[in-house]
Every structure is written in structure tokens, then in C-alpha cells.
């Protein structure tokens, strides 16, 4: 296979990854790593570097649409970015010392957890009583527009959410993924932020978190231009197409299929990691 064929096939694969990633909310990066390692037999370190760049591209690309709706909690995002960026730097450092087979197994496990979480019923919390003094002092409470007008919401369990975000950052730096599912889990289930706000705030944070470990990866040679070329362009085009379809189609069936595919890929990654093939 020449570089031309390789680039074109990967461009198509990245387009599909971006499309499915945005339709299911899992992000394009999670499919890029199995695609590169299992299908193209790329070293997992190149795959991780490339996926991280794809995560930044999709996060920044879709942020402009979200920010306009005015539901992103910028203060909450900024405060939690302290946790995710320190975690991401730690994760990127950890990646040097960890054998690639262990990284593959952890990736597989995180992928399965993310897939399961994306199917978990989303309760739409609305906490209106001020229970966290810390949230008040940090001015994390906010409001968001609903059909019934602006609604005020309060944030809870700030230290727990912060710790969870640190973990999300470590995984992001170690595996080259946006860890969007974990970020939403921290804000949604722990901090009781309304689902719409947590989803968009998580997306807002992914780019900054990924940038913190991307600068380390760049110096280490994980980020290869020959791979970034098809992946960045493909994932961006796919994500763009995904948001267009999302407005119209019923994605329930697609989500189920994608969830099954993701789980199979994850199992394959774990198997290859355990048998030392990655």
C-alpha cells in the first residue's frame, strides 16, 4: 500500500469515525485508536498522538455552535480545567513509563465504560437549593435557558467532582482521548449540573485538556504529520456532517450498533494488549 492509498483509506475511516463520534456523543478520537492499531497496524503511540489531535479538532469545531446557545458554564469549565490539565500532564508523563500493552488494556476498559455510560439513562437534575458553600464562593452556580425561561441551578459536591475531573485528565493524557463521557459523569452525576450544561461544558473543556498533553506528545514524536493529515481533515468533515444529521434523524438504532462495534473493538484491544501484540 502506498502513502497515497493509505491516506485516502484513512481519510474515509476518519470521516466515519467523526460522523459516528458526533452522532453518539463519544467523540471521534475513541474510534481512531482502534482503527489505526487494529486495522492499519500502527504503533499505539502514533495512534494516541493522532487521536488527541482529532479530539482537539472536534472540540474546537463544535464549540462555536454550543457557545452560541449560551448554556456553557464558563466559570465551572475554567475551574475544573485546573484539575483536567494537571491530570493530563501527569497522564502524558505516565505514558512514557507505561508499557504499550498496559496502555492498550486500559484503553479497552475505558472504551467499554464510555460505551456503557453513553447508554445510561440521563436524569436531568435540577438542584435549586444552595447546599455547597464552595460552589457559592467559587461562583460556579449558573443559569440556562429552557422553553419555560431562564432556570437557575446550583452545583454540588465540588471536591468530588474535582477529583473525578483529575482522573478524566489523567486518562486523556495517557490514552489520547477527550474523556468526554467521564467529564459528563463528574458534572452530571456528582455535581448535579443539568445535562445540557454538563455536555456543552465538557466539550468546552476537552480542547484545553488535550492541548496540555498535546504539547508533551509533540516533543516526544507521538504526533506524526503523515497520520494527522487524513485524520484531522476526515474527523472534522465527519463531525460537521454528524451535527447536520443529528438535527434530523432518529439516532437510537445507530447508537446501539455503534455501541456494539465499540465494545468489540475494545475487547480486541484488550486481547491484543494481554497477548502482547500491541
Amino acid at each position, binding site marked *: *500500500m*502506498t*502513502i*497515497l492509498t493509505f*491516506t485516502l483509506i484513512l481519510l474515509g475511516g476518519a470521516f466515519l469515525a467523526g460522523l459516528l463520534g458526533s452522532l453518539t456523543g463519544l467523540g471521534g478520537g475513541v474510534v481512531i485508536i482502534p482503527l*489505526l492499531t487494529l486495522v*492499519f*497496524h*500502527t*504503533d499505539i*503511540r*502514533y495512534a494516541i498522538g493522532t487521536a488527541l*489531535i482529532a479530539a*482537539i*479538532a472536534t*472540540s*474546537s*469545531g463544535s*464549540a*462555536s*455552535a*454550543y*457557545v*452560541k446557545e*449560551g448554556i*456553557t458554564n*464558563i466559570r465551572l469549565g*475554567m*475551574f475544573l*480545567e*485546573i484539575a483536567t*490539565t*494537571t491530570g493530563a*500532564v501527569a497522564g*502524558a*508523563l505516565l505514558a512514557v513509563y507505561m508499557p504499550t500493552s498496559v496502555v492498550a488494556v486500559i484503553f479497552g476498559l475505558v472504551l467499554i465504560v464510555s460505551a456503557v455510560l453513553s447508554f445510561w439513562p440521563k436524569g436531568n437534575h435540577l438542584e435549586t437549593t444552595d447546599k455547597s458553600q464552595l460552589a457559592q464562593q*467559587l461562583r460556579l452556580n449558573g443559569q440556562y435557558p429552557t422553553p419555560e425561561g431562564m432556570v437557575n441551578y446550583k452545583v454540588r459536591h465540588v471536591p468530588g467532582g474535582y477529583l473525578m475531573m483529575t482522573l478524566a485528565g489523567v486518562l486523556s493524557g495517557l490514552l489520547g482521548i477527550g474523556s468526554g463521557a467521564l467529564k459528563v459523569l463528574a458534572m452530571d452525576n456528582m455535581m448535579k449540573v443539568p445535562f445540557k450544561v454538563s455536555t456543552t461544558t465538557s466539550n468546552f473543556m476537552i*480542547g*484545553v485538556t*488535550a*492541548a*496540555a*498533553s*498535546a*504539547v*508533551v506528545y*509533540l*516533543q*516526544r*514524536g507521538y*504526533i*506524526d*504529520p*503523515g*497520520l*494527522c*493529515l487524513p485524520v*484531522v*481533515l476526515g474527523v*472534522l468533515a465527519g463531525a460537521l456532517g454528524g451535527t447536520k444529521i443529528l438535527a434530523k434523524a432518529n439516532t437510537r438504532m445507530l447508537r446501539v450498533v455503534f455501541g456494539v462495534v465499540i465494545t468489540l473493538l475494545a475487547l480486541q484491544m484488550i486481547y491484543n494488549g494481554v497477548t502482547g501484540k500491541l
Partner: protein
Amino acid sequence: MKRLLSRKYWEDKDVEVLLGTLLRYGVILSSIVVFAGGIIYIIRHGHEMPEYRDFAGPNNRWDNLPAIMRGVFLGHGREIIQLGVVLLIATPIARILFSVFAFTVEKDYLYIVITLIVLGVILFSMLGGLGG
């Protein structure tokens, strides 16, 4: 200009829309650069074989900005792609810088400090010799 410096302006949702626009232009610009570099790369190397099976470690042609810029001025495809990638990484960092400015105009000292901490962590990972 007077409007830009007024506190009211920055408290508006306009700031957020501006942030979103900044991110979008960053992404558009970097895609164009990646695409341009990609054309050169494919024309010159399209017939060669891809080598990604084994990790080769840092490549001193594109693991630091000065080297990337040298390659860009020589018209090398892969360095131009990498410049696009660097622009993509720089986009969220630019957003942080922009937020420091926005919080300063709002006189929100707590969040100026929080934003500067985030910026500090990123600068540390950039310049702290973590490349190994």
C-alpha cells in the same frame, strides 16, 4: 474601541460568541494549512510506503517549532502539515489567553487567578522539559 473597553460589553453574551468564533476560525485556518501541506506531501511522497508499524521516537524535523518553521520556509509538506497541527493545539490555548482578558475587564479577580493557573500548567508542560 470605546465599546470594546466598556464593562457592559464584556459582560454580554457577546464574549462567548466571540470565543466560539475564535475557535471556529482557528479550526478553519489549521485545516487549510494541513490541507495545503498534505497536497505537497502526497505529490512528493505519495508513491512511497507508509512506515508506522514501529515507533521511531521524536523526529527532529517536526518535534519543535523552530524546526517546523524552517521546514515550512523550505516548502516541505510534512512541516506545513505539522504547522497546521500546532495551530490547532494553539486554538484552545488562545481561548484561555482571551479569557484572562475578558475576566480582567469584568474585574473578576478570582477567575483571573484560576485562568492564569490553567495557563501556567499548559506553559509548564510546554517548556518544562517534559519531552524526555
